[in-house]
């Protein structure tokens, strides 16, 4: 069902995301030193890298959240962009449904919010307060909130980083299903190599503010050699 682009595709007008020579710096320190990135419609890209390599800075640039950061470069993103943060970032004073429909202006917002909640398996919890939900459930509400907007691009910044291992596996399956149903382009920032291999069509390793490695993932690829290669790029030499 997924129409993969086959990986390292050159820039074209059909790309959902196109980043050219992106430079961002905090003070004298360069965080992004000329990043190029293309994401095709419906493509799932995972962004790996050690802490401080600029993963989150890149994601925030795509989300338009870096207005106060110095930099240059060209960023082309679609109009409908949704962001899922590492913390579920639900407004504690709003109900679950109110959080999902936050910012929607159409008259059927509530009905769409309910459908989105049903999709993430939280039907019936519309009136609950966020603090009444478990961590995994809160992150599902965050997913519902981002997908109810029917984004062309979904940006996820270590969305499962704070969850326990079992919940994380469930969330992987859920995200896969949701992405298959809604078909947004996805940029997933993660530090988890296995998560990247399981979910993404293409994996990018960022190092010192530059793209250091770019590999096609998916079922057609030898998973263990890809895993070894990615870990090596991250400075971890795993036992075979």
């Amino acid at each position, binding site marked *: 069902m997924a129409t993969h682009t086959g990986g390292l595709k050159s820039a074209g007008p059909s790309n959902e995301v196109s980043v050219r020579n992106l430079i961002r710096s905090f003070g004298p320190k360069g965080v992004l030193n000329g990043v190029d990135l293309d994401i095709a419609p419906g493509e799932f890209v995972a962004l790996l890298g050690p802490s401080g390599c600029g993963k989150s800075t890149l994601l925030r640039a795509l989300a*338009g959240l870096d207005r106060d950061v110095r930099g240059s470069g060209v960023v082309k993103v679609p109009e409908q*962009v949704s962001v899922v943060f590492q913390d579920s*970032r639900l*407004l504690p004073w709003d109900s679950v449904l109110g959080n999902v429909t936050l*910012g929607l202006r159409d008259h059927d917002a509530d009905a*769409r919010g309910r459908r989105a909640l049903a999709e993430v*398996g939280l039907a*019936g919890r519309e009136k609950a307060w966020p603090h009444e939900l*478990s961590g995994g459930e809160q992150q599902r509400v965050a997913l519902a909130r981002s997908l109810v907007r029917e984004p062309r691009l979904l940006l996820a910044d270590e969305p499962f980083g704070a969850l326990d291992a079992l919940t994380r596996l469930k969330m992987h399956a*859920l995200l896969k299903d949701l992405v298959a149903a809604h078909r947004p382009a996805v940029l997933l920032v993660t530090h988890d190599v296995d998560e990247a291999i399981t979910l993404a069509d293409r994996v990018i390793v960022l190092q010192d503010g530059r793209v250091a490695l770019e590999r096609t993932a998916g079922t057609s690829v030898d998973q263990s050699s890809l895993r070894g290669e990615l870990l090596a790029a991250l400075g971890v030499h795993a036992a075979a």
Partner: protein
Amino acid sequence: MTTTAARRATTVTAPPYQGDSTNGDSTKGDAGTHPGAAVEPHLDPALTGRPDVRPTSRRLGPGQRRRFAGLVGPAALILLWVVASATGLLDPRILSEPWTVVATAGELIADGRLQENLAISAQRAGLGLFFGIVVGAVLAVLSGLSRVGESLIDGPVQIKRAIPGLALIPLLILWFGIDETMKVLTITLGVFVPIYLQTHAGLRGIDLRYVELAQTVGLSRAGFIRRVVLPGALPGFFLGLRFAVTGAWVSLVVVEQINSTSGIGYMMELARTYGQTNIIVLGLAVYGVLGLLSDAAVRLLERKALSWQRTLAG
């Protein structure tokens, strides 16, 4: 347009997420793995009929809330008064006996003076409180959300804060005379400061992450104020309101005892002239009860409005 419709259609038909059946119920309380299932509190039948045998660990919170617990302190105070008067420890010339005060209250209610004065006092306090809340909240939002507003508003409010309300009264009398306008204005000026300070602090304390969220979901300025700023500043506002309500009664005493021909303060001032300690004490008691009741009302309102919070207060 057609693509949007198609996308919507997929949304409707997409099956609900069923969870990973092999994992079962690994996440505790994660009722979402069973879509549509009613969410019920976990009641373990094995535990309900038996004495609780859990090991008791030291509890650091204040424990469960009990009804009418807030009345224990005031009741103890009254009891102390009764005992001291009955045993003769307290000279009636210094402080009237509680039963004398109750009898006085009966007389004043019978001839209608207490209700009459109470009504006019309550009206003044209520009006002053209302205007003070509106002014304080609006100024707090203006100064909290814009740098221009802050530089214009915050300084003058801090100056007002440093000037005692009592010191303003001569000027207010000069400007507005001695009728109701002056009285309500004095109360308003006393009330808006705590509302402003606490709401402003609450608003400035809103997590920046929520501001980011508001940007990413495309909230408008008005939507941002309504959905993020106002609810986020509400805890601070309620703290300010508690100061404001008691402050309103305090300002009321001042204006009613300085120049007035009605109200509880006036009734007490008149009693002072005639040396009627019992009426003075009654007036004090009325102020005390009003203060206690209004604080309880604010707290009740606070609990209802802030039910999303999980705090030590419970």
